[in-house]
């Protein structure tokens, strides 16, 4: 139930970021100044912190999506769906433990 709700919420969030991200990248076709000035906003502390949320949403959606595929195709998938949810959370915590300090170093570092 919670994995299902989280999968939907993270999916919608990632979708709207994707729309913005395609538009901001399209500015490389306009001019270096246009692109650089918009990308500069990604380097601010606020957006840098929000990006941690984005990466967290992507990693949850990615590994829970693999869990959904295993439930559909693996013979024992439905039986172990609950255990697999915990595996997803453990993978998420491990990857975030690697990403968060790195990102914080980048946005607050010299």
């Amino acid at each position: 139930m919670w994995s299902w709700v989280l999968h939907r919420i993270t999916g919608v969030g990632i979708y709207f970021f994707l729309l913005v991200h395609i538009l901001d990248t399209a500015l490389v076709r306009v001019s270096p100044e246009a692109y650089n000035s918009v990308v500069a906003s990604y380097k601010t502390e606020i957006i840098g912190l929000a990006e941690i949320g984005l990466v967290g949403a992507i990693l949850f959606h990615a590994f829970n999506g693999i869990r959904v595929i295993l439930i559909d195709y693996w013979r024992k998938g439905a039986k172990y769906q609950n255990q697999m949810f915990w595996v997803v959370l453990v993978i998420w915590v491990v990857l975030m433990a690697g990403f968060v300090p790195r990102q914080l170093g980048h946005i607050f570092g010299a």
Partner: protein
Amino acid sequence: MAIVIEQPDAPRSRKGAQWEKRAWIFMRASGIILVLLIIGHLSVNLVLPEHGVKAIDFAFVAGKWASPFWQVYDGLLLWLALIHGTNGMRTLVNDYTEREWLRKSLNITLWVVAATLILLGTLVITTFDPCIDPNVHNYLPELVCKG
């Protein structure tokens, strides 16, 4: 309009059933590829560069797209992510809208947005010209610019 719940065992039209089945398979197939592509995308752009997100600028993109590998990589990411995301949004629209005209309008909007951004993104990748930057030779010394 009253909500009509279909008989679960009512036969679907052959065409409709095929389409939904293909969409279902696409979500899983594209999902697996996207997990790999996006982890690579985040690693190369956010995690591995010494200054992470602060290293991203026009020169960074020009450096990547000088190689056909990253052009194909980003093109694949664009198409798969947008179709996967749009189809996912279609699922939510179908689940949460009750009025048929609203459901249809939202779904049409989703696919128009997807088609527009796929076209825009594909054009940006395929027609990208690093020579619009006068300082391009500072970071792409081998590049030959016309004029």
